[in-house]
């Protein structure tokens, strides 16, 4: 059941979106992307179409606008004056598709390097055509206007420009921030990403739906299964199929477990960055226990690829319950011990409280989602706003911060882990017996015995491998509450087994876009902790 997009003229784009924001209450700009119609089987009026995905302030309703772009070199009006999140979203569309945005403050590449020629997501760009990059850009084109706005002069006073990253222990190897310092205080900052851009979206266009699952593992690799689930669920929703109860419960259990793992890694690394190394051991070790469970279940520690369209590879193993309960106890222990060390620790509190405060209004403008948005006091969680998989039947709370500072972002994660553990414990009790996969041989691989034992099973297997799962023609945006926030997939299907286009709506991309703004006026050491508390995962940020 594809959702319907409202088609508007490019001339009325700015006006329509202003109206949607100010009068209709669609205050969250989730994503902007484009479609290249070059290879499309049905005729379309223009080669490029833009897609704007907005969410209502009640967090329930999604609105999609489509705009035909008559001439990509002329482009359409930028909406970055309406939403801060549009700034980088438009830059990405420009980078990947080469569509211009009129009046954009700084339209330049964001994922690909500066020496790159062409626009890789265009259908006529060959997927394997790599381009060597010899130099990094100096980013002064972004820094200079910032300094000018603040009446600062690089040649006068104590101003110093320092490069943090991308090869910096606290920048996760992939984030580069150029900061202008006055003493230790950051007076201006510009962030560059794209160092881990690995062509997820282009790769999707030449793999069938089940082959994409391993790629989704590597979006947010700290909670790989969750990405599997989000993608599989989106495709299942497009096909209008639902998993049997047991399958859903398994997804809830492993999904929530990976949310916990994600938060554990974020907090362990964040506290390590501030010198609290003991916390690292307490929080990181139970994560290894959780990996033992996952590797016993799925065969892999980190990149599990456990899900398939219409279900999962296999059922839980005998004795899973005892193993899982043991893991939960160990996680509980790690959280408790870690909190004992920090909850009333003056250094921890002083270093985190009132640092990089993001107000609720700003957070919405930047299109924060997930724990980072909730830390700012906005009660938005898809498991509550638009419950799927029966989340409404579980007893758990939404964790919300009040200030939106680094402290809140970390503490929200601590508490969310407890909530997820609650969900898992309830699910263990309630999980029913029965099938785990949908019963449809156009979707699920036949049993090996029938593949080897009969021609029908073999043909069935063959077709599924060669052609893949066929998804009905249409366009669909599916959203999922992942560990870092709203993980969305915008999929365009032409009816075949390979998607025509897949766009990920990655939470981290929008969080990092705000980063240079929220670290201003704080010290370098604070910025490091802010980055840790935002939990930027390069795999999903750069894709």
């Amino acid at each position, binding site marked *: 059941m594809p959702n319907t997009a409202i088609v508007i003229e490019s001339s009325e784009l700015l006006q329509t979106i202003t109206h949607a924001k100010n009068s209709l209450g669609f205050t969250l700009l989730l994503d902007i992307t484009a479609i290249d119609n070059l290879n499309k089987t049905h005729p379309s009026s223009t080669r490029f179409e833009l897609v704007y995905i907005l969410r209502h302030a009640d967090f329930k309703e999604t609105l999609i606008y489509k705009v035909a772009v008559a001439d990509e070199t002329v482009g359409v009006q930028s909406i970055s004056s309406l939403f801060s999140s549009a700034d980088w979203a438009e830059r990405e569309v420009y980078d990947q598709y080469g569509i211009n945005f009129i009046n954009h403050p700084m339209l330049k590449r964001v994922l690909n390097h500066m020496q790159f020629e062409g626009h890789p997501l265009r259908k006529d760009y060959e997927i394997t055509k790599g381009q060597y990059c010899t130099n990094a850009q100096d980013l002064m084109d972004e820094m200079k206007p910032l300094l000018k706005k603040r009446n600062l002069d690089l040649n006068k006073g104590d101003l110093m420009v320092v490069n943090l990253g991308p090869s910096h222990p606290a920048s996760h190897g992939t984030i580069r921030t150029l900061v202008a310092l006055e003493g230790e205080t950051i007076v201006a900052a510009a962030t560059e990403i794209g160092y881990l851009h*690995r062509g997820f979206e282009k790769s999707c266009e030449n793999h069938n739906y089940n082959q994409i699952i391993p790629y989704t593992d590597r979006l947010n690799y700290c909670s790989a299964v969750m990405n599997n689930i989000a993608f599989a669920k989106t495709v299942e929703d497009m096909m209008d199929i639902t998993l049997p109860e047991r399958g859903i419960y398994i997804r809830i259990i492993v999904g929530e477990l990976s949310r916990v793992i994600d938060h554990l890694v974020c907090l362990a690394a964040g506290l390590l960055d501030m010198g609290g190394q003991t916390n690292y051991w307490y929080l990181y070790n139970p994560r290894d226990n959780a990996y033992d469970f996952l590797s016993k279940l799925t065969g892999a520690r980190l990149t599990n690829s456990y899900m398939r369209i219409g279900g999962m590879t296999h059922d839980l193993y005998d004795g899973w319950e005892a193993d899982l309960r043991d893991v939960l106890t160990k996680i509980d222990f790690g959280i408790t011990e870690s909190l004992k060390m920090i909850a009333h620790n003056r250094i921890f509190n002083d270093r985190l409280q009132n640092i990089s405060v993001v107000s609720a209004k700003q957070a919405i403008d930047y299109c924060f989602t997930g724990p980072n948005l909730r830390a700012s006091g906005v009660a938005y969680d898809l498991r509550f706003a638009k419950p799927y998989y029966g989340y409404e039947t579980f007893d758990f709370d939404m964790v919300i911060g009040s200030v939106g500072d680094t402290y809140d972002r970390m503490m929200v994660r601590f508490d969310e882990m407890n909530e997820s553990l609650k969900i898992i414990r309830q699910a263990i009790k309630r999980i029913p017996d029965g099938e785990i996969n949908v019963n449809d041989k156009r979707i699920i691989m036949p049993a090996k015995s029938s593949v080897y034992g009969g021609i029908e099973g073999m043909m069935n297997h063959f077709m599924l491998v060669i052609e893949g799962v066929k998804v009905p023609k249409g366009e669909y945006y599916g959203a999922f509450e992942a560990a870092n926030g709203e993980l969305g997939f915008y999929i365009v299907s032409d009816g075949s087994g390979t998607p025509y286009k897949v766009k990920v709506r990655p939470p981290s991309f929008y969080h990092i876009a705000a980063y240079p703004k929220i670290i201003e006026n704080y010290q370098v050491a604070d910025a490091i902790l802010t980055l840790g508390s935002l939990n930027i995962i390069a795999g999903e940020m750069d894709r």
Partner: protein
Amino acid sequence: MDVSNTHLLDEAVVTTTIDAVINWGREASLWPFVFGTACCAIEFMSTAASRYDISRFGAEVLRFSPRHADLLVVAGTISYKQAPILKQIYDQMPEPKWVIAVGACASTGGFYDNYTTLQGIDEIVPVDVYVAGCPPRPEAIIDAILDIQRQLKREKCFEVRNTEFKGKLDDA
């Protein structure tokens, strides 16, 4: 003193080569620089944490300045955009230095055969040990470190290695 009478010195002296002594020291004091960019870096975190504990092999002094390090551990996908940074880090490391390519991506580009991913870091820097896996388990990363240790024992300690190597970014 008549040193030809070895009995006089008893066990106070052992004879060996400079190479053997220096390499013996180097072997158990590798200082890794972890160039971690992606999923593989998460498994490196596990390798360093208490369960797998690389300090058992003398390689726990992780450095984030290339000037302090002699073992470059490249864990994760390297894009064309990242490549010049990696090369710069490698160039900044003093000799002697060794390189481990952790995982499919660093070794060959992995399953990212596309416009943005470098098809193996050996296009730009020389690699001593490749580790298979996506990601490799921590045991495999430890095994690679042991491999480097075995390898370096056979080397001449004052010789500069890889002088012949010419990478794709070298004349740029």
